[in-house]
């Protein structure tokens, strides 16, 4: 199905491949990441590479930019086979890349960052460079201050600096690796406006994404990558989003959500059928988890949490949305007993846990599933030991651990949570999905009254994500109060009953789920409107 070069391109562009990848293979150990990938990129097109996490998208792009060496395969630029061993080679062949984590030197100015790839050893004429930066910015219609320190810019602005870097090197091909993952919706629009301006000038843009609506709206061609192989390349105009989703995940369903979740809020959500495991929203019940005017100091004078008030009732999932770094992590730390607030009160089921340590927090009935999975387990210890590590006193026999009960406990949970591991496996050897299941099992098996969970599906495949979502909805049905912190809007919209939005350490808005649209949330996330 990978009829790459014969695929028609958008009208008005010359169908001449600028860059071709042929039969690219790459494996790490016995994990095959790219399994004979063919891909071509034509002048003036926006070519989207669509695939799930772990499909091999980023590896493929890193190979094209010389950051990773392929095991075999050929790269052609303008028809000629070339060797791209380092980013320098890629730049020399007119290929630029904006990596997911920006390759910027934060204490340096915009101009210094932009000229980094072309400087020699001698004196740098920063005045000329500055002028060229402004010209490049003008070409793509963005405003930048060439003298600003990159570290002081917003994420959207930093991304623009990355694009300027590529332009400054006279790239004809621009690779964008998950460019929208870190942006608020408004910045996403600006980004694609820039991309269209670039392609009008004859550049070819290759962007990778796992977001269907983005791909549908902004690309001329789309290639679907699944398990290291291109399963289809087609003009985006012909592509039915539902069919693309199927190609991407390799099966026809996707998503677990609340029975009453809004369907039309997002094109992707429209694909998800309500599943039978979800429950009707229970009538309003008692507040279980409550924060009153909680503040947390940060570095310097700025507060990382600034008077946060929040309550979660029994049988309710409250979602916390926001661009990463606006206090979500600190909020979770406070709730988990890892940080003591300088003001305010936190209660769980009426018990004051303000400033208490993790043990008191757990004993009050709060289950914690923090964002950092690896930091929440002891990698060298076995699955069974990690499962009881928060509750060792219950598994004592005299001064020792009761091994038989620990084993029985582990076996029961492995069965119930379908964890693919033996009780004695070191937990560090598990995949992200299985590790997350162990964490869920550890927390949920204690039947907590309230659950705090952060980025629960980050890095998980579709199957594991569904499992995690279903478990959270089951807890809600069982009457637990769930606080869900996530940067994934779709996840929030699918699971939460109410959403609050955090910006710069404050809660800037609360949106009932029926009124929550990405546009409205985006404004709140950008701190633009209440």
């Amino acid at each position, binding site marked *: 199905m990978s009829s790459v070069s014969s695929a028609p391109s958008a009208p008005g562009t010359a169908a001449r491949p600028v860059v071709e990848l042929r039969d690219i293979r790459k494996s790490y150990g016995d994990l095959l990441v790219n399994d004979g990938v063919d891909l071509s990129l034509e002048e003036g097109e926006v070519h989207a590479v669509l695939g799930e996490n772990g499909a091999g998208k980023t590896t493929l792009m890193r190979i094209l930019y010389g950051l990773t060496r392929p095991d075999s395969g050929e790269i052609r630029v303008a028809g000629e086979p070339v060797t791209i061993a380092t980013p320098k080679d890629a730049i020399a062949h007119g290929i630029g890349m904006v990596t997911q984590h920006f390759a910027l030197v934060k*204490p340096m100015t915009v101009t*210094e960052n932009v000229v*980094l790839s072309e400087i020699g050893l001698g*004196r*740098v004429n920063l005045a000329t460079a500055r002028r060229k930066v402004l010209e490049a910015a003008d070409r793509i219609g963005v405003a930048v201050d060439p003298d600003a320190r990159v570290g002081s810019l917003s994420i959207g602005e930093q991304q623009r600096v990355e694009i300027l870097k590529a332009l400054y090197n006279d790239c004809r091909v621009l690779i964008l690796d998950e460019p929208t993952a870190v942006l608020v919706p408004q910045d996403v629009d600006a980004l694609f406006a820039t991309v269209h301006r670039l392609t009008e000038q004859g550049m070819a843009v290759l962007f990778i994404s796992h977001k269907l609506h983005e791909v549908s709206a902004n690309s001329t061609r789309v290639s679907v990558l699944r398990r290291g192989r291109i399963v289809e390349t087609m003009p985006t105009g012909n592509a039915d989003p539902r069919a693309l989703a199927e190609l991407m995940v390799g099966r026809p369903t996707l998503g677990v959500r609340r029975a009453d979740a809004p369907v039309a809020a997002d094109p992707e959500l429209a694909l998800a059928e309500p599943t039978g495991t979800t429950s009707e929203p229970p009538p309003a019940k008692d507040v279980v988890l409550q924060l009153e005017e909680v503040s947390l100091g940060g570095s310097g004078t700025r507060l990382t949490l600034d008077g946060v008030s929040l309550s979660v009732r029994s049988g309710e999932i409250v979602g916390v949305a926001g661009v990463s770094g606006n206090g979500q992590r600190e909020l979770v730390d406070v709730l988990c007993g890892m940080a003591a607030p300088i003001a305010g009160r936190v209660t769980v089921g009426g018990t004051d846990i303000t400033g208490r340590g993790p043990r008191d927090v757990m004993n009050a009935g709060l289950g914690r599933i923090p964002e950092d999975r690896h930091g929440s387990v002891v990698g060298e210890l076995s699955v069974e030991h990690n499962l009881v590590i928060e509750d060792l006193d219950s598994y004592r026999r005299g001064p020792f651990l009761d091994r038989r009960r620990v084993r029985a406990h582990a076996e029961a949970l492995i069965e119930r949570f379908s964890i693919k591991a033996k009780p004695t496996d070191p937990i560090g050897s598990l995949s992200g999905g299985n590790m997350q299941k162990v964490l869920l099992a550890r927390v949920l098996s204690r039947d907590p009254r309230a659950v705090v969970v952060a980025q629960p599906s980050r890095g998980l495949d579709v199957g594991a994500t569904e499992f995690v979502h279903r478990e959270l909805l089951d807890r809600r049905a069982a009457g637990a109060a769930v606080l869900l912190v996530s940067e994934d809007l779709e996840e929030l919209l699918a699971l939460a009953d109410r959403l609050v939005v955090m910006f710069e350490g404050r809660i800037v808005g609360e949106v009932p789920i029926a009124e929550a649209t990405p546009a409205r949330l985006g404004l709140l996330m950008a701190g633009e409107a209440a």
Partner: protein
Amino acid sequence: MIDILALIGAMLVAATPLIYAATGEVLTERAGILNLGIEGTMYAGAFSGFLVAAKTGSPWLGLAAALVLGVVAGALMGLLVVTLGVNQHVAGIGTTLLLIGASEFTNRLLYGGGALVQIDKFGLLFPDVPVLGQYVLTYVALIVVVPFVWWLLRATGFGLRVRAVGENPEAADAAGISVARTRYAALMGGGALMAAGGAFLTLAVVGTFTLNISNGRGWVCIALVIFARWRVWPAVLGALLFAGVDALQLQLVITPAFSGIPRELMLALPYLVVIAALAASGRGLVYPGAYLKPYRRA
């Protein structure tokens, strides 16, 4: 009572080795490498400079030998921390121990038991003028080396590369800059400066080689660079402060009014000042982003 002009003159002499070595350390640390080989590099610089000057009779050839040794010492650090990815603390202390040991061993083989060998050392420029009567190397440090390194880091491609690999080596790599080569270059250049600082002790101040000649000056420079927040001119300022207090305590020792104060306390005074300065300025330090981190492409 205290001769201010003599004090300033002595301060400049005492500061010179610190200025060279601290400037060298700024260079390597801006590239992301804490070079704890500094003490050994100064020590071996002092010895190799002395050795070659003693054999050839020329302090200039001695200086050249020290510079070569410093480049080699920097390359050794590079081999350990850049190529092999060894922990920087371990590699640096190992390098220092190796260089001090090798210097003392060679010294014992060649000059063991005999009388102190005096070399034909550098003379003073303007010997009759107070304050300005200094060694050439002091003038070179203040008028050539420090401004040059400042300019290098600030306005040249090489300097931008050094800062980039020290702050975000991934970004430098993605921009087509060789992280390894840049770090080697910073280490070798920095090593040459450290060795020059050491050689100043034998070739200009003492005129011979004695055991423990660097006397912890390398460690002082490590503190000075942090105090200076990885900037060249503040490092010079720190060196002058340390040397000033050092020169002052030497004057105070021979001042009758202070004769009651124990000599040991006086000797400790400059070190106490450095500790106090570090403590006072140590809040909110922003280390180079890739400090202590070896770089491996993912």
